[in-house]
């Protein structure tokens, strides 16, 4: 049962990822990205990490993919012209990606661990463990991450400010180098 769910979700995720790459229309690519994120979230749930599945769906599917869709629609993508590189570059890129994948699979097959899922408990399901770890071992990273979010918020505010509308200021691009 879980195996069938894994294969279905893997198929869904891979197909939607391929859709991100091959769809010429950027809106469709963003929607495929959304499906892929939800698929990965479902895989997290299948791995027993229910909290991360919820976070994945909330943050990635709910925020990131929707922001992508907003920005794509903001840009007035013209027509959906085929915007692929020249075929030589595409072949080289495909060869590189295939070599990357093959190297990963071969190294895993040769040296990979043979962990058995039944032998270990799904620690990711334990929500209490997250809290304990976050407030003891990972306390400093939590604070640094919080500060990073603050910096990102300020940076986005500065970057997306309307420029060249303040009369009298010398350079119109003053906010661009934050």
């Amino acid at each position, binding site marked *: 049962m*879980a*195996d069938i769910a894994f294969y279905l979700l*893997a198929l869904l995720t*891979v197909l939607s990822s*391929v859709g*991100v*790459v091959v769809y010429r229309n*950027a809106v469709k*690519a*963003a929607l495929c*990205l959304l499906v*892929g994120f939800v698929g990965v979230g479902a895989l*997290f749930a299948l*791995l*027993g*990490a229910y909290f*991360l599945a919820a976070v994945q769906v909330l*943050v990635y599917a709910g925020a*990131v993919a929707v*922001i*992508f869709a907003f*920005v*794509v629609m*903001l840009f007035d*993508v013209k027509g959906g012209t085929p*915007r*692929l590189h020249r075929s030589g*570059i*595409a072949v*080289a*890129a*495909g060869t590189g*990606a295939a070599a990357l*994948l093959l190297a*990963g*699979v071969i190294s*895993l*097959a*040769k040296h990979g*661990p*043979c*962990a058995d*899922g039944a032998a*270990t408990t799904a*620690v*990711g399901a334990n929500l209490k*463990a*997250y809290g304990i*770890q*976050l407030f003891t071992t*990972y306390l400093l*990273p939590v604070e640094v*991450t919080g500060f990073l*979010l603050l910096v*990102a918020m300020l940076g*986005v505010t500065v*970057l*997306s400010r309307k*420029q060249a509308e303040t009369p009298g200021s010398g350079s119109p*691009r003053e906010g661009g180098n934050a």
Partner: protein
Amino acid sequence: MNPLLHSVFAASSCAARCPLAGVGLQHYVVLSAVLFAIGFLGVLVRRNTLVVYMCLELMLVASTLAAVAFSRFNGTMDGNLFVLFVITVAAAEVAVGLALIVALYRQRHTVQLEDLDTLKR
């Protein structure tokens, strides 16, 4: 893609070392590698800056999938927490990156990579 992976697995020694019946760690890691390779291909092939950025996010998500799978099959908590931080940083990164792309679009009125070649000239 699937028969290729199966042939690689059948030829490998790992299948002989540990005959797993169900879905194991290898399946998740291979899926993660597949997603990473697709994202890598997209980054190299596409010319729209936004789609390139989407493919970058895809690569990031693929790596988090591998981390969660390793965490699950090793019985440790660290991978899950690491993924939590990665998701947080990725959200901040997407916000800043998209703001940069919007600022770029305001200045150049294009998001196509072949038009953004000022540093090449």
